[in-house]
């Protein structure tokens, strides 16, 4: 029989309290229950990184985590990166400017992973960025434009 638990989570600043089936992954929960479909499931075995979201600011794979494990935590998805007035996050601006996306499917995970990474290391070099996204697979860009975008965004975020 399905097993449900009541959980409270804050997603992109909005509090949600609801019953979820215990086996539901955080990714499915965000997409199906909270109806935020910006988080994409690419491999569902924790390698491709498309489903990455921020849990209390830290990058996690929402396919490898259960929704019930997020109880009491704050989650940021790609929909929560821009300001409330719609102005884009510097990473989003830079991805747009540098052609850092083609099909756009891996992009949410790239943006969330890099948001967390630039928080830890505001002055990365190219090698650092390549290591930081080595757990995110992009099949379109060859990564180069993503790396360029991330370096540019880091610069902007440092106020340079």
């Amino acid at each position: 029989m399905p097993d449900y638990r009541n959980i409270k989570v804050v997603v992109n600043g909005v509090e949600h309290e609801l019953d979820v089936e215990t086996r539901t992954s955080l990714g499915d929960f965000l997409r199906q229950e909270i109806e935020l479909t910006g988080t994409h499931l690419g491999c569902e075995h924790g390698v491709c990184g498309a489903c990455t979201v921020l849990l209390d600011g830290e990058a996690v794979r929402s396919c490898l985590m259960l929704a019930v494990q997020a109880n009491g935590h704050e989650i940021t998805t790609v929909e929560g990166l821009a300001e409330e007035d719609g102005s884009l996050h510097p990473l989003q601006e830079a991805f747009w400017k540098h052609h850092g996306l083609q099909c756009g499917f891996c992009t949410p995970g790239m943006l969330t992973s890099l948001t967390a990474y630039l928080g830890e290391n505001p002055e990365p070099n190219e090698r650092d960025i390549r290591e930081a996204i080595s757990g995110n697979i992009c099949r379109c860009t060859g990564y180069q434009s993503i790396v360029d975008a991330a370096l540019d965004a880091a610069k902007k975020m440092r106020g340079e």
Partner: protein
Amino acid sequence: MGVRYIGAEVQRMEDPRLITGHGRYVDDIVFGDMLHAAFLRSSQAHAKIRSIDTSKASALSGVKKVFTLADLGPNYERRMNQLYPAPVIEQNKTQYPLAKDEVCYVGEAIAVVVADSRAIAEDALALIVVDYETLQAVIDVRTALEDGAQLAHSDATSNLMGKMRSKFGDIEDAFSKADHVFSAGFMQHRGGCHSMETRGVIARDDPWGDGLTLWTSAQSAYLIRRALANWLGEPEERVRVIAPDVGGGFGPKAGFYPEEIVIPLVARIMECPVKWIEDRQEHFISTTTQRDQYWNLEVACKSDGKILGLKGKVTHENGAYIPYGILLPNSSLTPLPGAYSIPAIDVGLDIVFTNTVPNSPVRGAGRPCGIYAVERMVQLVSRRLGIDPAVVRRRNFVRPEQMPYETGAKLRGGDPVIYDSGDYEALLDKALELSDYDSFKVRQSEARKEGRYLGIGISSCIEDTGMGPYEGTTVRVEASGKIVVKTGAASQGQGHHTMISMIVAENLGVTPEDIIFESADTGKFPHGIGAIGSRIAANVAPSAFDAASKVRAKALKLAAEILETAEADLDIEAGIVRVNGAPDVSISLGELAIKLTPPSSTRVPIGFDPILEATSFDGSSGSPIASGTNVAEVEVDTGTGEVKILRYSVAHDCGVMINPMIVHGQIVGGVVHGIGNALFERMIYDDQGQPLTMNYGEYLLPLASEMPRIDVTHIETPSPLNSLGVKGAGEGGTIPAAAAIIAAIENALEEFSVEVDYYPVDPQYLTSLIEAGVTG
């Protein structure tokens, strides 16, 4: 003329949605009463099905119904149709939408569960019992044609699907005049597309309303509409296929799959929308892939490296069924003789069934294989004769003054292969300069002093792009002044919205932001072909240009009458038609549109058809031939066999570039696909046909940490075959990449006499070659 957009690095119109999480991929589409499907797939590579027991699965709470082939209805126990019939196909094996009594690869769909949720549907799969009678599987394509070989299909006469041959010139004369004949054998393996979005289908049937609608993650919506309507025996007009945002395609999404029959049928039977989203494991075993090709070639040449002829034999692994005609094997042969003027060629190719996932093109289709083969032989000539590989290329290139150059080969439709334009030596020069080729020997010897092994490799290619017959565009000005642009051309990330908007905006005197863009929806544009073979820019761009030109002409003609001036005195800027020198005298495109769509009891201006609109299917009058040279510089760790790409340089020519930023992205992304082929991606089956690489820990895709920075430069030789001078750019990065990298590896390991005879070159294989070189 207003603002120039063609040639500018315009930021993409697609991106604001996609970077904020507001894309609309198939799995993002939800209907309130929607059910969810999951497929039971064969666990056996080859077996008879004695029985399927679905009773326990059907009884599970939340399961609506379980379907086998018989449950789809008596009219539907039929195999799928051949999408691309061809005389070459001697045994036309297509699959049933759900297996009937025999399965021929691990992953073949057998049954489908429809349930309240995907999770419940998957629970039910485990409760279905299939009684198999296991048959011997055919896996090794090299022995599959031997007498007494097991058969991949129990009712087949042999494992031969068909034979092809590319033959032109006097091959015997070429070999009789040769100073040298060299031979080589090598295996080429290409894996799957592994688009980050898997496949997925939603179907909704509304017999008294819209008919049957499919949302599917696909490259060719119109092909799916026709194939589905044909198979069902229903009118195309009652089938609508929509490709929404598609998360990568790369070839395998260009076909028509069993799920695109089964999901519509079960949606019809259940009388509600049904969604199926492929999971990644299914992608490994049910999405078509490329597989192995074994090449054995002989090259005849003079002592100066001038190549006279090329002959040999290819064995091509087809997988279990033929979902896609012979497009893949055919495109392996048509690129011969590559960028070179080789007077005689005779290469035969056997297409062979095995019990593996059916084959379809992956980025470049067979072109990377054909070009790899030619480049390997050029490399062999260089090596055996001790002539620099750049020099051998110079002595053999088709020269600009030979254009248009007819190679002697034939395209699939029987038309001759004609190189329309290009300067292959100029590309070589640019790539050599970009890679500091001249100083490489210094770098190599410096590194060698430190015990490091550096190598450099060159690969040149041509690419037949823009295959016909057409794509189309409609441009319409609506009353609001917004410009509606519709096309059949689907995008899987190539930026068609931006590219087409730039062309229309420039020609019509509006901004790209004024454009409302609709594509890849058979309900919105009457017909199209699809995004395959680097064909969209060379087909849809001329049509967009032409349609916009016609709308512009109509707008100017009407404005001239209304403003009582000559058309030549008018210009359009920011959507306003103004009289030159009298800018206050003007009329907007929106107002003109209203004049041409007037209310009742009024009239359309005399001499005009209603609606400020035009449609065009103007395209290319042949295949524009793109070209390029790549140079790879690698370091090989002789202890571990690790290959590190230190530099990668590309000189490419895709004619006039509409948006150089997008072209750059296509080339870099394409190169990385080629690097994946050369070094990483391998789909392995055991001798029973069980796939062994079923996740991204086992099947390796290129990662950011291993990819080099790729330097790209261009020359622009306009194609004479279309109005804009454009050529395709989608696959030109992939096609030459493997040959450049492997030549570089061999160059690094010359003292070990390493000759690579298959790819992907994994460390284990490479260390075995090095060890053989040390001891040998």
